[in-house]
């Protein structure tokens, strides 16, 4: 298969074509707003194409480690045990995007159950660890977002 230019490069080139060739010839305000939205979506998608499998893979490991620590601290939590079992049963060895996404979602559910157990028990160190994981997750979301404003709302 051809890999150069990479997927993110191709997407960014489509974005350039949209902005430099198509948009100047669009007269309708309604369509111009759509084109501006598409431009933004393409930038987001390019960043995801370049990094999302690695990012989900790395984060899944961190979420699982936290959830297993909480499970060890609160061994009677059925929801957490069940979420960890579901993670174990997931398609963990595959690098296909659909499988990585599914595994990441199962790890997210394990994190949710774990943080709820920690907050419910008033366990401050485990609660703070959960917050740190959530902040790291959000940093990636913001990196994907890049520059963004509500096009067409004025």
């Amino acid at each position, binding site marked *: 298969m051809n890999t150069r230019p990479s997927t993110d490069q191709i997407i960014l080139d489509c974005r350039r074509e949209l902005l430099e060739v198509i948009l100047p010839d669009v007269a309708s305000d309604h369509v111009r707003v759509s084109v501006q939205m598409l431009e933004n*979506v393409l930038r987001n998608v390019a960043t995801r194409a370049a990094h999302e499998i690695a990012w989900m893979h790395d984060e899944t490991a961190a979420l699982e480690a936290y959830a297993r620590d909480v499970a060890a601290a609160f061994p009677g939590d059925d929801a957490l045990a069940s979420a960890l079992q579901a993670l174990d049963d997931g398609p963990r060895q595959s690098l296909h995007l659909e499988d990585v996404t599914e595994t990441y979602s199962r790890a997210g559910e394990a994190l949710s159950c774990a943080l709820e157990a920690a*907050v419910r028990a008033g366990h401050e160190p485990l609660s703070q660890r959960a917050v740190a994981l959530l902040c790291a997750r959000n940093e990636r979301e913001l990196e994907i977002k890049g520059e963004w404003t509500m096009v067409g709302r004025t």
Partner: protein
Amino acid sequence: MKDVASMGERLGHFLATREEGRTAIVERYAPMTGGYSRLMAKADIRWDDGTVETLVLRGDPPAGESMLDTDRDMEWEVLQGLTQLGTVPMPAARYYDATGEHLGTKCIVLDCTPGPSLQSALEAADDILVHRNALIDGLAAVHAVPIDELASCLPRPASWDAYLDERIALWAQTEGMLAESNPIMRYVGAWLDAHRPPPMDLVLCHGDFQSPNALIHPEAGLQLIDWEYAHIGDPREDLGWYLVVSEATPPSMYSPDPGAFLARYRERTGSDEVHVNEATIGYFSMVAMVKIFAGIILGASAMARGTNASLLTTFNLNAIAIGHMNCLGACGALAEPLAALREMAQSLEVQR
């Protein structure tokens, strides 16, 4: 409503059914940009007595194309009630095609406000604060509406706690409907439940109080539009939502001086500083966020499941990232101030 070629004639027929003995010619019909959830259009009308006016149409998009689904019947009932009451600055609600029989979709027809949106005015203004008092006073007028005189279709919570329980539960309920897990939503729900502020009386909330949803009429001044999220709730929800949206799409009239913004609101509503302050508004920014946040994030899940194909849905995925960031920041900053306010409110209660 998107079929410009046929809409003029359809609208003319519709108006004739609503105004007995009058007929109207639609001289111009054009779709509008700016509404993110509804189809919007503007129409220039000439009545048979020679009077001319411009009307705004606000209708439901076709099934599967809507990013946010809301109830047009309820919105119409609220708009009609507020138009009759006459105390809230807003364009009058005129007609409603409740079945879509005439206009192709459920559609509300309103007076057109001839003026820019507040958002446009702020972006062009040298001093944005010249509009601040008008915006706050408009909101105070909404919160002063006697809710017993409002549309019966608006749900009435049994108590403040019941109302807040329901609002907080939306975080976990929404997360449960998603196509993927969202641990930040689960955390926010748990946090809100553990950090409740002192309660206030429930009022009519606009539900989407933000600068793009206010227009500047050259004579009548500020007019509030887009009432699809109106509901009975805590008044701080509207203030909290304004904080969220104005931070995401500046300029904000709150952030330069929150103290002055809230002092004006307290002055116009008779509320006090224990209840209306930066910490409680921060708390309610998260409470308020869930309903519209849910619309966006559920739209994304619908797209993942193949039942929604809107460009707006994809575009607004970024709003989720901003919402997450705001919520995490607020949880970290507000825990201690809210605990202090609860203690203060309790000691005031004991003194009384």
